[in-house]
């Protein structure tokens, strides 16, 4: 392995990270998809000639951790490397090869320098549409969820592959946006390639071989050191989720720490179900390694080496490793829960490094579509979050998503795009779990339909039966509730309708508390009361404080 001193390595590494970041900025700025920009649902990765990840964009969301290198290796199996030419771009949206559901396009392109293959650029992004039933969780097999593209060339030597192009545009609802977004990825790939070539010139390197080995080793060592600080042992947890109707699901998690390695096993987890809640193995892996990195080694930049010491397994055919053609569209409803299962395990060994369960995991999404008063079609996703779990040092953040990181747009902007009026978006009093540190509050949202015709609602949510649990005797947060103005409850995971003038009340879950409520600082309780985060009744019930 070539020898890089601590200064050179720092400089070169930073530049490789900024290559991935520049590529990400290009993608973000040219993308149409609401999901890409509001929930950062994309990733850009720079890989070496072996297909190992060298650097990943800093601000992406966790769901794509480790996916691109694996996808690339699959691409190369199907399309021999001799057939990869400069200007080629290979895509897939197969959930098992790519990133877990059909709306995500996984793309990779070779990067050549001085006539030699030196690396690959990769990106994953959520498209505005992929045909089929649209974004919902009620499909019973994959085929209802949209079109599937097995790995194929979208660009051949810089020119669009017309057959693929025509096939996609013929099968999606908003072809211009979809093609526009695929091109946003292409732009990102090009930026990545240009920057890498420039980098190699500047650094007087012919290829990345030696550098890559040095970087991967550093990241690997950092993660191993972090794992070594966790006492050895096997830690177990069980997490229940609402599932689909009578099909309740549960996750069994065992985290085994052995020296510098950490293994997560999901043996005993529910079988896959015939609704779109299944999380393919790659998605399971991504949402398992991410919380581990946050808790144990948050500061080291990520590359292939970061994940070498962490392994994940789940029995084939369970909701965390479903087999084709399982429906997987709303896999976040299962995948987002893994962080909680893992933290419950780690809390047994390193309680100071983890947080309580989050009321916003999984996210509650509602999609509104129909025709507005001017006859134009609209489709809007409402982004908002429940409360984060409390930590060992502070209250959980209210209305903040974890493990995903999706923000919330402006209500004024939302209302200007759809015939909906939001009458309320406010903290949900008493929804945070009591504890020495209180779970973050959820929120109450009330939305009225002002269209002339009935519109469609697609709900994707959980936690109506099982609240976010607290840690170390912290109490649980409030459960999710969804009620219409006529008092009925729309299905939490299916498509239904809303009539003109009808209102939908969404109550987002609160985060779990951390530590015993009796240890909460009285000043904090007074401040909670004064600000109306809790009611006097709550204060009396959980803290034994009588303010009346």
């Amino acid at each position, binding site marked *: 392995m070539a020898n890089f*001193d*601590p*200064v050179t390595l*720092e400089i070169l590494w*930073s*530049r490789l990270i*900024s290559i991935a970041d*520049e590529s990400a*900025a*290009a993608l973000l*700025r*040219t*993308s*149409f998809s*609401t999901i890409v*920009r509001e929930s950062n649902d994309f990733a850009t990765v720079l890989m070496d000639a072996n297909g190992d990840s060298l650097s990943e964009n*800093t*601000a*992406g969301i966790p769901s794509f951790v480790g996916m691109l290198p694996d996808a690339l290796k699959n691409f190369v199996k199907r399309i021999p490397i001799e057939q990869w030419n400069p200007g080629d771009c290979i895509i897939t949206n197969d959930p098992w090869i790519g990133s877990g559901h059909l709306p995500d396009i996984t793309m990779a392109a070779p990067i050549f320098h001085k006539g030699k293959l030196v690396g690959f650029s990769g990106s994953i992004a959520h498209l*505005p549409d992929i045909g089929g039933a649209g974004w919902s969780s009620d499909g019973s097999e994959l085929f209802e969820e949209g079109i599937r593209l097995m790995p194929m060339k979208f660009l051949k030597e810089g020119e669009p592959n017309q057959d693929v192009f025509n096939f996609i545009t013929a099968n999606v609802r*908003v072809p211009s*946006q979809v093609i*526009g977004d695929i*091109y946003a990825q292409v732009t990102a790939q090009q930026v990545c390639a240009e920057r890498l070539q420039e980098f190699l*010139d*500047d650094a*007087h390197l012919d290829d990345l071989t030696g550098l890559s080995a040095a970087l991967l080793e*550093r990241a690997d060592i950092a993660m191993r*050191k972090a794992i070594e600080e966790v006492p050895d042992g096997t830690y177990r947890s069980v997490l229940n989720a609402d599932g689909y109707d009578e099909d309740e699901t549960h996750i069994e998690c065992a985290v085994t720490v052995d020296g510098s390695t950490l293994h997560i096993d999901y043996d005993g987890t529910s079988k896959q179900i015939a609704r779109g809640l299944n999380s393919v193995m790659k998605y399971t892996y991504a949402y398992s390694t991410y919380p581990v990195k946050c*808790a144990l080694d948050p*500061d*080291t930049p990520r590359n292939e080496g970061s994940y070498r010491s962490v392994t994940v397994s789940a029995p084939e055919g369970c909701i965390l490793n479903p087999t084709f053609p399982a429906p997987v569209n709303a896999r976040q409803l299962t995948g987002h829960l893994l962080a909680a299962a893992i933290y419950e395990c780690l809390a047994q060994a390193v309680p100071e*490094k*983890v947080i309580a369960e989050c009321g916003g995991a999984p996210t509650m999404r509602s999609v509104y579509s129909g025709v507005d008063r*001017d006859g134009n079609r609209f489709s809007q996703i409402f982004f908002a979050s429940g409360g984060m779990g409390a*930590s060992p*040092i502070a209250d959980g*953040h*209210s209305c*903040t*998503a*974890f493990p995903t*990181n*999706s*923000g*919330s747009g*402006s*209500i*004024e*902007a939302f*209302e*200007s795009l759809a015939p909906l*009026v939001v009458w*309320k*978006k*406010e903290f949900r009093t008493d929804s945070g779990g009591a504890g020495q540190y209180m779970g973050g509050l959820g*929120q109450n949202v009330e939305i009225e339909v*002002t269209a002339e015709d009935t519109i469609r609602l697609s709900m994707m949510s959980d936690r109506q039966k099982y609240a976010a649990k607290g840690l170390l005797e912290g109490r649980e947060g409030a459960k999710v509730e969804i009620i219409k103005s006529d008092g009925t409850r729309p299905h939490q995971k299916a498509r239904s309708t809303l009539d003109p003038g009808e209102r939908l009340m969404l109550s987002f879950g609160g985060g779990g508390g951390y530590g015993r409520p009796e240890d909460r600082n009285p000043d904090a309780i007074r401040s909670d009361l004064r*600000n*109306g985060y809790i009611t006097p009744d709550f204060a009396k019930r959980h803290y034994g404080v009588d303010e009346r």
Partner: protein
Amino acid sequence: MANEPGNRIRVGVDVGGTFTDFVLVDENRDIIFTGKRLTTSDDPSAAIIDGLERLVEESNTTVPDLDAVVHGTTLITNTIIQRSGAKVGLITTKGFRDSLEMGREIRYDLYDLFFEKPDPLAPRFRRLEIPERVNASGEVLLPLDEAALRIAAHQLADEGVEAIAVCFMHAYANDAHERRAKEILQAELTDIPITTSTEVAPEIREYERANTACANAYVLPLMRHYLGELSDKLAGLGLKQPLYLMLSGGGIASVATGREAPIHLIESGPAAGAMAGAFYGRLTETEHLISFDMGGTTAKMCLIEEYEPEHAHEFEAGRVRRFKKGSGLPLKVPVIDLIEIGAGGGSLARVDNMGLMKVGPDSAGSDPGPVCYGLGGTQPAVTDADLLLGYLSPEYFLGGEMNLDLSSVEAVVDEKLAKTTGLSVTDVAAGIHSIVNENMAAATRMYIAEKGRDPRRYALVACGGAGPVHAYGMAKLLKISRVICPLGAGVLSALGFLVAAPGTDAVRSYVSRLDTLDWDRLNDLFADMEKEALAQIEEAGADSAMVTMRRRADMRYSGQGFEIDVPIPDGTLDAASGEVIRQAFLDRYEELFGRQITDLMIEALTWRVYASGPTPNVELNFAGQQIDDNPADKGERAVFFPETGFAPCKIYNRYALRPGDRFRGPAVIEERESTAIAGPDTTISIDEHLNLIIDIDPPTEEGND
């Protein structure tokens, strides 16, 4: 104000965190004088008055002779960072009081489970809700409940609030309820200043607008008091002209603007720096310029195209983590678009847990400062590395006012960094210098790439104490071939106050697709904005006949989340203008993203007018105080460059260099507040304005190895 005959002696005052800088330009006598005082934080006007008196004395003039005093201050930013502003109450539409605290619901640090969020400027118990509602088209869905408002007013008064902000939903589309609410509140609470959201930020997006209104209310009592006191004191000294202020967008405004909308002054200091950069662009006829200001803690970079700094519409104040985007309070205010990163002379070097060397963003600041100051600093900083490499002289730091302690720096660098990394002291020092340059270059590259441009076409204008020391290295990383180091770079931003034009921005949101736009409504909006801008700019002393107006709009493809800034034609607009605007959007989109899509709908959200008066025509002549007759040649010392290692290098006295002088690098050019470094692959020349120009040779085919 600026350009009228007889209006010739003007003073710029920049109150910074540490120093208050002064520049006096006397165009009758064709001289420039500069000055510096320590900032008096308790009462900033003390240092201003003190420094001003000294400056007029030194320059042989008097306060009554001054034609203008232009002022900028960090008081507002600091008030928000230190949370030392007024007790603010917020009144909102029922159902939305928590918008201010929920913010964007984003985790700005993806991997930190324990990240902190900034506290809202008004806590929840001082945020009250009133029944009222306007929809996105500006139609009233629910009338304003005036009785409820009166009750709320007294509730807030009972809480002891010192200022009130009002933000109602969709007020940018119809501000009738906000205006009525202000009337009622003023009638009920005569002593409490009221800020409505549409007065300070009539733009769509309720969280940012409410934040801006609260921030304005938060600093308003303090700024009113301060500006009143300062004006009085200046009048007491005999100043006959009103005081002027610099807005964050780079325009000059009257004190009245500062009293009503102080939040628009929040970035006045950095704006002045950028305006000074633009001035040097004009002076040296450099159309594509990056101003680079590197001080003790931060480096700021700003793109200046055709003598105009880039504008932005949002600024993040009061960050919990200073250099972390998303960790502060986003405000909708017009600002100069610049980036600031944690890289300065005081940035600290360390070895991280992976054994890699890191520099910044933590800074030793000025107290204790770098190790070489000998004031108790124990961790090596960038300035220490610059000293070790021979870039700085141990005897001539701050013109010799401070001796730098070379031997203790060597010992500390050896102990703290060289031993841990297995590198020599020189390699560590060179490493620190390169890493900080790389950090700044990376940030600049990203900033420029986001605008779809290429750094290679730019020149760098360097200022700040550390700017000229690092500009050569940074230019090489960005493949920039020219560096300009103005004389007196240490007070450059104060000069910005004197070279900027009176100017103001007006803004309105009206969300519409281009094909269904109501042109009459838009024409009314523009007329309204232009009237407002003109009134403000006349108040700032400009002749209305000389005012130019430029229109812009924030536009996007329907469905996209990012808006781009598109030029809009003047005059009365109609459906035919729609095609012109569409084409302008497509051109701009292609410029930024390298492609365009012609079959998608385009929409506009927000419309803007930039109004400016004539740019003052300042001649630069530092002859008054800066030039000396000593020889330019200060001898030689060993200086490190990557290509040569330590090698003898000529040292020049900046004040003895004359226009037309020209020599090859390597060279170190020393002046009081800074030192310019030029490597072996450069030619250095002095232009007619005494600017130092460093031209870097084009790279050879083989590179440098």
